[in-house]
């Protein structure tokens, strides 16, 4: 897709809510409009984290199912 990913974090095996906390910490280091790539577990993590990020005004650009995990691209709002 040729996306300019500024930062990438692997949150495989990191459960709720620490995965959300770590995503917020990563986003805090980016400028508005920049992209963050996050690897999240299936189940609770992929259900909750993107939703919470949307609630805080960020955009979920893309979600790719990798089986056990999901690769999520977030645009900082």
């Amino acid at each position, binding site marked *: 897709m040729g996306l300019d990913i500024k930062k990438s974090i692997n949150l495989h095996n990191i459960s709720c809510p620490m995965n959300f906390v770590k995503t917020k910490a990563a986003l*805090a280091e980016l400028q508005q409009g920049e992209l963050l790539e996050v690897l999240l577990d299936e189940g609770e993590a992929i259900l909750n984290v993107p939703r919470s990020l949307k609630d805080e005004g960020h955009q979920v650009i893309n979600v790719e199912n990798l089986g056990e995990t999901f690769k999520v691209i977030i645009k900082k709002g």
Partner: protein
Amino acid sequence: MSLTDEQLERYSRHIILKDVGIEGQEKILNGKVLIIGAGGLGAPIALYLAAAGVGTIGIVDGDLVDRTNLQRQVIHFTPDIGKPKVISAKEKIKEINPDIKVNTYQYLASAENISDLIKGYDFIIDGTDNFAAKFLINDACVMAGKPFSHGGILRFDGQTLTHTPGNACYRCVFKEPPPKDAVPTCSQAGVLGAIAGMLGTIQAAETLKFFIGKGELLVNRLLIFNALDMTFRNVTLKRDLNCPVCGQKPSITALTDYEQAACDLKGQR
């Protein structure tokens, strides 16, 4: 400033909040708060601000821990009887959160020392038990342009307001201390222990809101509660342009110590 993994965990329930987040938690961590009085109000205030991660906490109190304090001053434990309150408080703060820098001032705040005491702090908290100190803190903070939280409790009642520069101060509402002995102190009138926690935690929440800069502070408002009826009331306040300390032509331009009822000074003599 980048938070460590330990800090992300410790403060996770703050960081999750949209109105706090990483940015708000960093502001809390950089915050410097002075708590005047390590008693009924100061105890829960210090505990919650330490837990919240307020970076620097100063505590002013000249008293020693007394057995009669333990019914409400929850930062002091039975083995602390006889220990300076500021030391007892510092020990608990350090156990809750070793990252906090604690400054102790083991003496009574007075007209002579209060300006120096408040100088290095962002936010001042009145956790004292007498009118002389409350007016002194108000006047010193107004003169220095420092925001502060006023708090008072007696029997089943509590009241609190937050002052920020340019808004109503304690003296806009209460012109001067009541005549000595007109109002009983806690030691004469009694106080339900839990209301110290109710009011102190409101003051702690105001302090944290001040740092994160979200919500509405108790500015130009006096919150009053009665725990017997369990009723809470907000009284709207207006800055008094003729206020003797924050008005347009202040008549009070220097700090003075009002006389205190002698029973307030237990352990100070």
